């Protein structure tokens, strides 16, 4: 399936180039955030959660709905939907990955310690801990 991503018309490669440019801008901005602190986003005392969290919640919905398109095919045996299932699952995986990246970008401190504590069973009652665990499950199964 993935080999289909490496062939396409001029317009397709233009789109890929545009996406790569956006990714490069993201990496550059994240490096700014690492050196200055989260204040560079414009968030402050009064607005402590911003577009990062908004994007996370939006993409959670995208990932969930992208998985749901398998239902007509598998549960209702509606063969027409078969074609969209694979695309849906690719979308679900990428949306789940972007979700995790947004959460990582929203954390004040960087480093591998960020994800590990959110998985510690003692703090599973925390909503953030739960969503972290949930998303690793989602990424694994979809």
């Amino acid at each position, binding site marked *: 399936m993935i080999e289909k991503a490496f062939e396409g018309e001029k317009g397709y490669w233009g789109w890929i180039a545009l996406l790569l440019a956006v990714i490069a801008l993201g990496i550059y901005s994240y490096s700014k955030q690492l050196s*200055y*602190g*989260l*204040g*560079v986003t414009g*968030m*402050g*005392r*009064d607005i*402590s*959660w911003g577009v990062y969290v908004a994007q996370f919640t939006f993409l959670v919905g995208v990932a969930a709905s992208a998985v749901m398109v398998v239902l007509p095919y598998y549960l209702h045996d509606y063969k027409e939907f078969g074609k969209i299932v694979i695309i849906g699952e690719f979308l679900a995986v990428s949306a789940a990955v972007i979700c995790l990246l947004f959460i990582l970008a*929203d*954390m*004040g*401190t*960087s480093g591998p*310690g*960020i994800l590990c*504590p*959110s998985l*510690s069973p*003692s*703090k599973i*009652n*925390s*909503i*953030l*801990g739960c969503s*972290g665990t949930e998303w690793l499950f989602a990424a694994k199964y979809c």
Partner: protein
Amino acid sequence: MKKCVDGCVKCIDACNDKHNVPDFDNPKDEIKWIWKSDYAKVFPSKNQQFLAKETRDKPFLSLCNHCADPPCVKVCPTGATFQMDDGIVEMDFHRCIGCRFCMAACPYGSRSFNWRDPRPAIKNITPEYPTRESGVVEKCNFCSERLAKEQQPACVETCPEKVLTFGNLYDKESEIRQILSENTTIQRKPELGANPSVFYIT
């Protein structure tokens, strides 16, 4: 609070100095441990009609309430903020990942996030207390580092008018319980059920 002098900020200055609280001079990045605010902001549910002018116009001291049932501790995914055996809600800056969930949970706005490196904005560094890095949350800790040395919290000790009293709420013989039994006091947003441990005599 009747004894508190308008315009006096000695308790705030003492706290900021003892805890290396940075001064950014900009409300967006501000770090606040103890500060003065309008009555209507501190007690939004008790801002009734025809309030005595003296109370209405008084700047009230605002700080972490060290709730008996703290919502910030419940939501923290890493256990960086926790309740100690004496009831004080403490912060472990090293465990904080900066998710700011506690700030969303705190009903009193008592928590501040380091939106940028605080160290250049500290006027004079007090080596007895750690400075923080960018990206962690901090708040009033009731001077637990001073309590361990049997000293009173810096704000209580500094106040020239003896406005503030600190003590053990669970000791029936303590001075604080004596004062609470003799005066009418109010708590901030008690209807939320967090059981704040800061009481105000208005």
